[in-house]
């Protein structure tokens, strides 16, 4: 396997606040990378930089071989984004939403029609395709949100908390879908607060805290290294047990640098 995402001292500052602090990371082609961290640790900011939504303050990042700063459009063609907030227009139907986003990727209507039908069938929404998605349940919306990110058949899919607030059936469906897509060769970057989900799905886990990567390795290796039963215990061991409600809760923690 070769690295499909690499970062070198990737940094993002907002004024004096360092949101992401010199991250060096390698994500391998075809793997599911579980990107974990407490609230405000820098996960979303890192994802935003890797998806070209935010410009790095310092350092570099290459995604699918292209620089996120200078070759942003090339990066965008090769990635799909399933953000935590649904990227869908509630007044429009599923087909109208998917047609719109598909066309933004340069796909013409002729190509899009069969692709949309195929994707809707994949997530069992073909019978609801002409309904405004405002009338969908949370699970239906999230399934649609995922296939929206797959319209242009990207090499890499960024999934930001794809199972948050879903019922157990929908959670299972989404997890199976993630596995299925990965088996088809897609590299997945998955951020989640559900440790068992990260443990189940990820080939590699990266933990970020206070803007710094504190661990990157296989979940099994980390559990064994810290003599923990679960990934959640590893996570708490590395990021501490203090609530992260304010900036003052940023506390020094032990750092284990695996592949970083």
């Amino acid at each position: 396997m070769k690295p499909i995402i690499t970062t070198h001292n990737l940094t993002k500052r907002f004024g004096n606040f360092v949101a992401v602090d010199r991250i060096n990371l390698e994500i391998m082609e075809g793997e599911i990378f579980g990107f974990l961290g407490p609230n405000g640790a820098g996960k979303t900011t890192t994802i935003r930089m890797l998806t070209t939504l935010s410009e790095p303050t310092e350092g570099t990042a290459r995604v699918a071989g292209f620089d996120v700063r200078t070759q942003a459009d090339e990066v965008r063609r090769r990635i799909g984004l399933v953000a935590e907030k649904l990227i869908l227009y509630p007044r429009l139907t599923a087909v109208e939403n998917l047609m719109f986003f598909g066309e933004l990727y340069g796909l013409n209507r002729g190509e899009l029609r069969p692709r949309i039908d195929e994707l809707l069938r994949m997530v069992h929404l073909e019978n609801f395709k002409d309904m405004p998605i405002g009338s969908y349940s949370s699970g239906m919306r999230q399934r649609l949100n995922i296939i929206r990110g797959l319209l242009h058949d990207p090499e890499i899919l960024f999934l930001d908390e794809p199972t948050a607030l879903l019922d157990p059936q929908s959670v299972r469906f989404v997890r199976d879908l993630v596995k299925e897509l990965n088996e088809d060769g897609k590299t997945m970057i998955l951020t989640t607060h559900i440790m068992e989900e990260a443990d189940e799905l990820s080939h590699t886990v990266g933990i970020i805290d206070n803007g710094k990567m504190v661990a990157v390795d296989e979940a099994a290796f980390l559990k064994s290294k810290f003599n923990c039963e679960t990934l959640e215990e590893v996570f708490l061991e590395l990021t501490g047990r203090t609530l992260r409600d304010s900036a003052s809760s940023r506390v020094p923690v032990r750092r284990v640098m695996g592949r970083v």
Partner: protein
Amino acid sequence: MTSGLSQSIYITFRIAHKDLLEFWKAKMLIVTFMTMPILMMSMFGFMFPQTSSLYKNAPMAMVVEDDGSLAIQVADQFKVIASSTALFRVQDFPSYQSARDGILTGTVKGVVVIPAGFTAAFNSHRQATVLITVDDTNPTMASVIYGETASIFRMISDNFGQSIISKMCSSSDPSFVSEPIGVQRENLIGSPTNTFQFLAPGFMALTVVMGTLSGLGSAIAREKEQGTMDGIMAAPISRNTIVGGKMLSQTVRGMIQGFLILGLSMLLFGVKVYGSPFLIVVVMLLGVASFAGIGIIATSIAPEQETAMMMMMLLQFPMMFLSGILFPMDQLPNWLQLVGKMLPLYYATDALRKVMILSASFNQILMDVVVLVLYSVTTLGIAIPIFRKAVTR
């Protein structure tokens, strides 16, 4: 797949189409969108009328304190003219006090008193005077009622004057002796303008600009807030197409509202368009462009939709009063006129009025056009980099 410029143009239209489709599906929003122009025109047209034509059959008290024949003759002539012009509905009152009470209770809007000694003064070749009292609670209405009453009495007085002159010097033209220099109005257009003719171009400009500003503000802020902007930004498209698409959709909405106002003004208020419809569209588009940049700057720096909307309100409110939409700019103090002339809405309104009412050509509104173009280029030149920066923070 197409590429380059044609693809960017297509995406711009696609974003605009999506916005309009979303708008079309919001039925309540469409109702408000259609109702607002009707309300605005009706409210401002009827609540703040500038001409007497809107005060039809105002109740007026007539008190004749003089029992001479001339007093009765003058009172009768006044009633005939007031009735034939439908300006006043005249009622006789026994005394000034009772008529004055009528103003206080709201049964009459003014009182005409022909005082005792009126006939005697006239017969002894002294000026005979009538007294007029009006309801001063509404200064606009008071001024119109006083003006119209005085004008009727001037007509009656002229008639008497001319008959006196013809008796005194039968060889001369009485109108020449009483008024050697006459004045005749020659209109630039077919008929004199009314309030709505003045208001309609201003409201069209205001609606287009307000629609674009608030629409652009809420469209961009809403997409940022609900997260869909990330979906658009993550696609391999130029940031300019996003700005272009948003501007285009809001322009279409603004233009529809603007023409809705025009249509209603023509249908309900007798507004006429004397100039080129093409020039009207050009001026309205320039009005939109001149404000789009300001709208984009405000929404780019606003953290959420609510703040963006408040910022837009802050911009719109003073513009309504300083750009010569509701009343002529000349009525403002000099320093406020200066402020008003720094706002692009003034130039859009001025150009629209000249085109619609005076049938001005492109060359005759060139100055307004140049200012609007300069405004558009400058504000958009500043806004687009700010927008790019704001969305990639």
